C-alpha cells in the first residue's frame, strides 16, 4: 500500500483551502472527511478536481471521487494516497523506454569490456537509481515485484548494465529497511545522484560473505581498513562503496561490519581490471584496501549484526539477482523464436519454426522459463516478515539456485536451436550465453545452499561441528 508522505498531504491541504477559503488548515488531518467534516458539496469537489488536474495533469481524480464519495471513504488521507499513486513513476515502463538504446550499445560494451557509463548516467538522470527509496524518505518506494520486473527488462537489453545497477538498487533497499539516520542520509544522497557498488566477496573468502577477512582496526574516530575485494561490480560508475570488514569484539572474536563510504581518492585502488568471459561490461574489478581510514559515521547497522541484517533482507538480494538472469532467458527465447520464424534454409524452403526439432527445443525453453518466472514471482510475493531468518534465507536461496539454473538451461537450449550462427560474435545469443552463466556463480554458493537446506530439512543443526559425519 502506498502511504502519502507529509509533503503530499500539505499540498493537498493547500488545494482544499484554495477551494474553500474558510477552512482552517490546522484542523485538517488524514482522517478528515471531505464531505462530512469539511462540507464539500459536488460543485466544490468538481472545482477541487479541476484545480488539482491543472497543476498535476497526470493525476485524474474523477475515479477516486466517484468511488470514495459513494463508499463514504472520502478522507483527505485516501485522496492524498490516490494522488501519490497517480504521480508515481512506473519503473517497468521506464525500463522499457531505456531498453532499446541499452540493447543497441550492449555489443560494443561487451566487445571492449568498457563500463557503460552512459547507461548508468541515464539511469541516474531518469530516477531509475532512486526507485527503491522508500516513501517516508521522499522516494517512490518501488517494491520488490516492480524492481524485479524492471530489472528483467533491462537485463534483456544489456545484462551488464542491469547487473551493475542491481548492486545499487537492492543494496539501497536493504539499507533503507534499517531506518534511522543511515537510511536517511543514504536516501538523500541517492536522490541527489549517488550510485552504490557493493564489495563483500574477497579472494580468500569466495562466496562466504559472512566471514570478511578485510580487517577493520578500531582507531580514534573510526576504523582503518585493510584487505582485498574481488568482483566489485559497478566500481567504475560508483560514487559510494558498500564494504564489509571484520573488527574484533571485546573477547577478540571477529565481528563482521558494513560501511558505506563515499568513494575515496586514496586508500582503495584497482589491482586487477575486470576482464572476463561474461558480464564483461560490469567493471567488476579487484581492489586493494590499504590503510583506508573510515570515519565512524560511515558504518551501517550495529557491529556484528551484518549477517542477521543480510538474512532478513535477503529477498532484495537474491530475487533481484535472479531477475537479471530471468531477463536474459526471456530475451533469449524472444530472440530465438523471432529468428526461427524468419530463417529459411534454402534446402528446406520454409521457416525453421516449422521443424519439429526446433519446436520441441523451443517448448523446453518456454517450459523452463515459465517455471523460473513462477518461482521468482512466488519468492517476490512470499511473506518476508514472519518466517524465521534461516527458513527465509533458505527459501530465497533455493529459489535463486533453481531460477538461475533454469535460466542457464533456457539459453543453452537456445544456442542449440539457433545452430552454429549463435556462436558468432555478431549474435546477441552468444553474449547472453556468456552472461547467463554468471547466475550460477554469483551468491549464494549453490553447494552451501544445498548443505544448509538439506540439514534444515533433516533437522541437523546447520552450524554444528564437525560439519559432516565420517
Amino acid at each position: 500500500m502506498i502511504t502519502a508522505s507529509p509533503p503530499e498531504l500539505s499540498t493537498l491541504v493547500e488545494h482544499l483551502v484554495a477551494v474553500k477559503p474558510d477552512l482552517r488548515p490546522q484542523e485538517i488531518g488524514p482522517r478528515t472527511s471531505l464531505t462530512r467534516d469539511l462540507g464539500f458539496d459536488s460543485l466544490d469537489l468538481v472545482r477541487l478536481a479541476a484545480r488539482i488536474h491543472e497543476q498535476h495533469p497526470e493525476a485524474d481524480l474523477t475515479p477516486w471521487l466517484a468511488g470514495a464519495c459513494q463508499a463514504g471513504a472520502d478522507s483527505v488521507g485516501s485522496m492524498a494516497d490516490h494522488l501519490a499513486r497517480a504521480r508515481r513513476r512506473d519503473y517497468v515502463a521506464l525500463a522499457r523506454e531505456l531498453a532499446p538504446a541499452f540493447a543497441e550499445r550492449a555489443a560494443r560494451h561487451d566487445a571492449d569490456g568498457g563500463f557503460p557509463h552512459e547507461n548508468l548516467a541515464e539511469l541516474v538522470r531518469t530516477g531509475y537509481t532512486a526507485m527503491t527509496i522508500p516513501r517516508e524518505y521522499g522516494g517512490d518506494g518501488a517494491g520488490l515485484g516492480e524492481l524485479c520486473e524492471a530489472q528483467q527488462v533491462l537485463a534483456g537489453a544489456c545484462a551488464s548494465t542491469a547487473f551493475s545497477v542491481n548492486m545499487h538498487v537492492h543494496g539501497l533497499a536493504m539499507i533503507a529497511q534499517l531506518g534511522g539516520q543511515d537510511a536517511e542520509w543514504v536516501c538523500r544522497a541517492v536522490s541527489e545522484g549517488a550510485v552504490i557498488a557493493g564489495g563483500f566477496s574477497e579472494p580468500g573468502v569466495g562466496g562466504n560473505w559472512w566471514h570478511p577477512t578485510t580487517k577493520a582496526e578500531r582507531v580514534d574516530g573510526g576504523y582503518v581498513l585493510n584487505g582485498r575485494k574481488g568482483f566489485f561490480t559497478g566500481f567504475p560508475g560508483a560514487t559510494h562503496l558498500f564494504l564489509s570488514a571484520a573488527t574484533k569484539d571485546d573477547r577478540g572474536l571477529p565481528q563482521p561490519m558494513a560501511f558505506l563510504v563515499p568513494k575515496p581518492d586514496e586508500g582503495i585502488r584497482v589491482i586487477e581490471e575486470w576482464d572476463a568471459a561474461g558480464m564483461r561490461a560490469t567493471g567488476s574489478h579487484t581492489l586493494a584496501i590499504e590503510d583506508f581510514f573510515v570515519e565512524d559515521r560511515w558504518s551501517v547497522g550495529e557491529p556484528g549484526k551484518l549477517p542477521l541484517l543480510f538474512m532478513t533482507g535477503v529477498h532484495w538480494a537474491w530475487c533481484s539477482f535472479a531477475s537479471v538472469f530471468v531477463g536474459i532467458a526471456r530475451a533469449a527465447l524472444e530472440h530465438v523464436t523471432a529468428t526461427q520464424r524468419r530463417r529459411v534454409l534454402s534446402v528446406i524452403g520454409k521457416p525453421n519454426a516449422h521443424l519439429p526439432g526446433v519446436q520441441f527445443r523451443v517448448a523446453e525453453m518456454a517450459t523452463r522459463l515459465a517455471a523460473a518466472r513462477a518461482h521468482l514471482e512466488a519468492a517476490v510475493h512470499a511473506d518476508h516478515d514472519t518466517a524465521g531468518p534461516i527458513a527465509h534465507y533458505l527459501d530465497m536461496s533455493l529459489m535463486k539456485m533453481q531460477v538461475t539454473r533454469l535460466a542457464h538451461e533456457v539459453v543453452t537450449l537456445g544456442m542449440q536451436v539457433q545452430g552454429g550462427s549463435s556462436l558468432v560474435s555478431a549474435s546477441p545469443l552468444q553474449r547472453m550465453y556468456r552472461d547467463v552463466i554468471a547466475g550460477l556463480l554469483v551468491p549464494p554458493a549453490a553447494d552451501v545452499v544445498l548443505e544448509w537446506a538439506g540439514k534444515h530439512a533433516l533437522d541437523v543443526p546447520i552450524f554444528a561441528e564437525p560439519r559432516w559425519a565420517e
Partner: protein
Amino acid sequence: MNETTRPAVPAGAGGPGERYAGTMFGLAEQAYELAVRDVKGDAKRSRLPGGQFTTARMRASLATMRALMARHDPGDPVVAHYVAEAAQEVVSKAFELVTDPLAAEEMSRIWRSLKATAPPLSPDHARERIGKAALLIDPDATPRWL
C-alpha cells in the same frame, strides 16, 4: 502478454492438465516425505553431505513445481509438462535415499502410480503444442511439419 508468455491453450481449458499436475506433484511430495523420514531415522546418514544435498535438490524442485502450479495459467500445457518431468526426477532421487524395505515398497507404488497415470497430452504432443504456441504456429495447420 508477449509471445513468449502466451499460453498454448486458452485460460480455463486446463482441467485435466491441472488435475494431472496436481497428482504428479502429490506423488513427488509423498516420495520426498518418505525419503526425509527414512534419512532422519539414521542419525549418521542424515549427517552425510550426499543425503543432505539430494534432500535440498528435491526441496528446491518441489518449490518450483508449487510456484508454477500456483502462478502460471493452469490451462497452459507447460504446467503439466514441467511438473511431470520434475516429479519424476524427485521420485527417482527419493528412491535413491530410502533404505528401509517398507519405505522402498511404498516408493515402488509411488513410482508405478507416477508412470501409470496418463497425462492429458503425451510429452511429445505437449512439446509440439508448447513449441508451436511460442513460435506462433497454428497447432491445427497442415501439413503438421515441414
